């Protein structure tokens, strides 16, 4: 672990302190969303960038984490009316925020395991479409289990436990985890897996296990982010964690560079700032303009610079670690 | 004028140089054979000629015309037919449909005549006319592949390992047919591992080894060549 990176992290937390104390609410909020997007794109990169899986279902795990944690942390006074059809012990139980986030992650882990085992038998485009199915399944569930989630009306009254430290703490943690994956023997195995999974299998790499592992860990991270998200926006609905956010995160990933963690951080920053900057344009008729531009940008990148900004390389200070000469 | 002239050809796959500066020519109306072990680069050479792979260096000229910038379908329309390794069947298409693809570029008026001729040459295909190509035996597939190439009335025929996986008696039949058809003036470049069989029909031979030309000469001379004999013909030392 490079001490220069430690400096970056420290600087980041100093900025967090500063933001928390003196920035105005809007800027602070933006800064937090940026952190969430960084965490999302980095955690998705673990799967989409490092393995041969291209998942489009990340938002589903976000949803699982968001709803699970929200349902658990809802304040006592709101519980009886919200969960009127549920058991009394549930109406009287409130879970502390950190535990609720972990619970969300656990649900996502279980879901990822259950779905992952059959789903990950697929390859390529099939697999990606299968992960889209995940989005639909989770959305259908959250919409129909109204006794718990309040269905399409949305779940509101979520306490605002999320603050800038939580967000960026989790973001840094996600980055750390994914980097560890990338530089470890996992990462090398993933390299081989991505290029030729049959050959990789033949050299003794347990491809199925590794793919499942990355899928599950990524899901857990997404769930935690989902939980943070819910406790920032205070209201969540089934259709929030769907197509649009998936597209945005995928775009961040691809433009930053699939497989490059610093790339996904940069991608998140760039693709977050642009829509915000262009928000003033989005009046009336032009609503959704930023997404349109994003989509066009994505195609342009695919045609002219498919590896994105950084390809698979990382920003480093000084000496390069021995990474594989990837493109 | 030579049907085919290759000069200093270099082809790379990824970081590997499959062909390192190969020069060869196929004389008009002759059967030229390219010998060599597995991995020598023979298939790569044929693919470079038909345009499926692009060379990194060197030139390929068909009847003195440089084809470096042409796409495979354009090269095909110049009169080149390539029967690739593994025959390149359209397994879900019937024998008839495969042949129809062979005459894709032919003028409509000639199509039925050409198909007739092909079926006369390979009566077995007539029997299997409406069957799916994927259900044919190895030998029948090779016949179909050859027939499909021939109905295009090519001026240059490229054959990649026609005897691969076939029983000797069928291989001989295939080569007999090649010699028979070539008498119409067609130039042929055959890539073969079965050197003995190939040298029987060939006029000229080249020997390729790990991407480079080892030796070349008249087929009769090559078959008498000692080192070639040991390496490829199983001649005792």
């Amino acid at each position, binding site marked *: 672990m490079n001490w220069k990176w430690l400096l970056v992290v420290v600087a980041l937390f100093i900025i967090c302190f500063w933001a928390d104390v003196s920035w105005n609410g809007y800027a602070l909020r933006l800064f937090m969303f940026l952190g969430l997007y960084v965490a999302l794109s980095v955690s998705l990169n673990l799967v989409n960038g490092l393995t041969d899986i291209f998942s489009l279902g990340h938002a589903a795990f976000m949803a699982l984490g968001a709803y699970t944690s929200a349902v658990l942390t809802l304040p006592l006074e709101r519980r009886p009316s919200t969960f009127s059809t549920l058991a009394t012990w549930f109406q009287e139980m409130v879970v502390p925020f950190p535990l609720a986030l972990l619970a969300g992650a656990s649900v996502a882990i279980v879901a990822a395991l259950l779905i992952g085992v059959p789903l990950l038998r697929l390859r390529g485009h099939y697999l990606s479409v299968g992960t889209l199915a995940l989005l*639909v399944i989770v959305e259908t569930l959250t*919409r129909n289990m109204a006794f718990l989630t309040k269905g399409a009306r949305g779940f509101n009254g979520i306490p605002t436990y999320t603050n800038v430290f939580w967000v960026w703490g989790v973001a840094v943690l996600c980055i750390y985890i994914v980097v560890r994956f990338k530089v470890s023997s996992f990462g090398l195995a993933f390299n081989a897996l991505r290029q030729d999974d049959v050959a990789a299998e033949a050299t003794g790499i347990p491809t199925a296990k590794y793919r499942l592992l990355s899928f599950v860990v990524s899901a857990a991270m997404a769930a935690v982010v989902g939980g943070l998200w819910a406790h920032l926006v205070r209201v969540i609905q089934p259709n929030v964690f769907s197509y649009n956010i998936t597209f945005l995160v995928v775009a961040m990933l691809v433009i930053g560079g699939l497989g490059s963690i610093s790339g996904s951080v940069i991608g998140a920053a760039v693709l977050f700032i642009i829509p915000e900057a262009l928000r003033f344009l989005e009046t009336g008729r032009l609503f959704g303009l930023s997404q349109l531009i994003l989509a066009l940008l994505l195609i342009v990148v695919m045609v002219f610079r498919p590896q994105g900004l950084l390809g698979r390389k990382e920003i480093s200070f000084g000496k390069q670690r021995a990474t594989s000469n990837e493109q | 004028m030579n049907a085919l002239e290759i000069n200093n050809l270099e082809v790379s796959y990824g970081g590997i140089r499959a062909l390192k500066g190969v020069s060869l020519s196929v004389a008009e109306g002759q059967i030229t054979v390219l010998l060599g072990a597995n991995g020598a680069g023979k298939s790569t050479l044929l693919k470079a000629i038909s345009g499926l792979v692009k060379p990194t260096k060197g030139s390929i000229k068909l009847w003195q015309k440089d084809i470096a910038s042409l796409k495979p*379908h354009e090269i095909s329309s110049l009169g080149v037919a390539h029967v690739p390794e593994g025959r390149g069947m*359209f397994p879900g298409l019937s024998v008839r449909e495969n042949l129809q693809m062979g005459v894709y570029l032919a003028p409509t008026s000639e199509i039925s005549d050409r198909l007739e001729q092909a079926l006369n040459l390979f009566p077995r295909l007539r029997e299997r006319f409406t069957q799916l190509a994927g259900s044919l035996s190895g030998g029948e597939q090779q016949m179909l592949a050859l027939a499909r190439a021939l109905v295009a009335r090519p001026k240059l025929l490229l054959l990649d390992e026609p005897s691969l996986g076939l029983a000797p008696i069928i291989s001989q039949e295939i080569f007999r047919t090649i010699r028979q058809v070539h008498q119409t003036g067609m130039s042929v470049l055959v890539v073969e591992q079965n050197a003995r069989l190939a040298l029987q029909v060939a006029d000229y031979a080249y020997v390729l080894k790990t991407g480079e030309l080892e030796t070349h000469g008249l087929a009769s001379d090559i078959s008498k060549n000692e080192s070639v004999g040991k390496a490829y013909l199983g001649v005792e030392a």
Partner: protein
Amino acid sequence: MNVDYFFQQLVNGLAIGSLYALVAVGLSMVYGILRLINFAHGDLMMVAAMSGVTLLLFLVKSPFILFIAIALLAGLLGLVFERIAYRPLRGAPEVNLLITSFAVSSILQTGTVMAITAQPRRFETVPVLSKLYDVAGLQIRGADIATFIIAVLSALALTWFTRTSRTGIAMRAVSENLQVSMLMGINPSRPIALAFFIGSLLAGVAGVLWGWKYGQVDPTMGFLPGLKAFVAAVIGGIGSIPGAFVGGYVLGLAEVFFIGFLPPSFSGYRDVFVFALLFIVLLVRPQGILGAAKGRRA
């Protein structure tokens, strides 16, 4: 539960199945020839339907002409995207194609929202189609009859085309082996563009039929049918056009019977059911009903 109810559900299933079949066939055609699952396919259907409402409805009164115009529009749109988004990526890694088609899908959705509206719109229909016809004691809507007939006719026409015409056979040849087809002198760009055109045209047809059936269209309506068409194509055997056709009906019927014979509280879960079906098929018979037994990858 009586016989009438059963037949009513059967008719429903066939009607929905026809829609799925049309979209699935287009999807399968494109996949067969490019190994690309076009995410934007469902959205093409949506664009067709939305255009039918807004633009053309004021210009064209005859449903017949509307139908043809929209189908052609959809076909052309598909061609445009093939040319600018997919052709430059021919030979590129799978992932890039996937991302691009995802982007195209987004463009179609947001473009429609911006150009037309984000709100659901009523799809005008004509009396011929909205009327209930008495067929063998059952009440069947004209639109459903039309849907079924059009789906079957399309399938027949497509089969005839790909089996007898030189271009159609070339399309199949390119699907089977792109490299070798080039050796035959076939310029692959043409069959590919044609496959896109036809596939998109079918999606457009489905869009109009959908509008006639449900009477309402909106910019997000393409996503789910597109996914379900994928499920249908997988059930039938992806890459196989007859397979996609059959798969569409299997899915439509399964979905309708699932809803029809389970308690109403389950009806919200119909989509989960559809995807559960997908996973089952993928686990038990990944090549689908009509697909040849290949490896895991298709």
